[in-house]
């Protein structure tokens, strides 16, 4: 049930990925999920993923941003326009993060 709930949240949170493939991915624990950086915000702001999933952030702004874990778990280099950063979450938990250049930009990854 927990896996199904997580998968549904992902299906709602990521456009363009069918629920079936998300479910399959969740079961294999190798899902890749996208976060877009647009207009000085992370989208989706809160992302729920299964353990073992990889999240890829893409900067679509004309201004550089970073993706930095508030607790020091991960930290990207500065991302210029269209540059990406990926991190694989191997442990369950809640991972708040922010852009260290524009700290008003915050997001959260929930790993279940």
């Amino acid at each position, binding site marked *: 049930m927990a896996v199904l709930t997580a998968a549904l949240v992902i299906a709602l949170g990521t456009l363009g990925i069918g629920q079936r493939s998300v479910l399959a991915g969740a079961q294999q624990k190798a899902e890749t999920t996208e976060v877009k950086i647009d207009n*000085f915000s992370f989208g989706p702001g809160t992302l729920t993923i299964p353990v073992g999933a990889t999240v890829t952030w893409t900067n679509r702004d*004309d201004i*550089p941003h970073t993706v930095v874990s508030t607790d020091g778990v991960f930290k990207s280099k*500065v991302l*210029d326009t269209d540059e990406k950063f990926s991190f694989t979450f191997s442990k369950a938990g809640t991972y708040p993060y922010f852009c260290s*250049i524009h*700290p*008003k930009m915050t997001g959260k990854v929930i790993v279940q």
Partner: protein
Amino acid sequence: MAGKTKDEIQYDHNHDGIDRRGFLKCMAWAGTGALCVMSGGVLKSYSLSRLPEMSSKEALGELSFVQISDSHMGFNKPANPDVAGTLKAAVDKINALSAAPEFMLHTGDISHLSKPEEFDTVDQILKGAKPSDVFYVPGEHDVLNDDGKQFLERYGKGSKSGGWYSFDKKGAHFIGLVNVMNLKAGGLGTLGHEQLEWLEDDVKHLKHSTPIVVFAHIPLWSVYPEWGWGTEDSAQALAYLKKFGSVTVLNGHIHQTMQKVEGNVTFHTAASTAFPQPQPGKADSPGPMKVPAEQLKSVLGITDVNYVQGQHALAVVDSTLA
């Protein structure tokens, strides 16, 4: 403000030069240009078109310097594909000023991505300016990836370990502050405990009549916290400056000119030499604003500051690059 030829604002003025009740908020949006002269409790502002009518004593002082900001060398997006060209235009503007400024202040975001070649290009262009001395403070774009190590190696000679410093020119005391390091999630610009302690000590022995000029990248007043346009602990810094009769705070970061006067403190933000940003809250985000190519130079600019010794007057003049 710019729509009028002259505004005169007079507010209740205490003998210590600090006025809690007096509050003035006037905004000069990029491209408008204004001259503001503050003397005692009276602030007068004039549109740039009236400058020729003013006496040289009003318009020019014994100390003249220029503030430039937000060069963003390396930026190449549609909002301005030629930031080197517009920085050169800013240098031309500086070299054409009737009174040659003694030095320049650069209030940060020299580079776009902290790349060595970006800093090199700015250094090269600024060598073409008549004033040879440039005093820098970092913007957040200058300290990417290395916590400001490169910035301090290039520009931090004589500064404290964190990059802040002060110096005196013709009786005025200049303070360069760093508020772009160690930013916390959800927060604004930060000065930090160590810098605040240094500031308190730095101004402790100065006479109350000493004109103070503070410069830092992110505004030291709350312009628009929703976009991060403010500094968490600026109130503490300003508390150390309460005793002074004349305090001028010069910032960049928001890529538009804006001014506020509160008691003895005049806050001023400079235009960028690279690209404009939207007015607070007038867009989804504070990202680069694209304007028609022929209008670009009217929303970029430089700031010329004149200090008349003995009158405690600082005149702040914004000029566009158009």
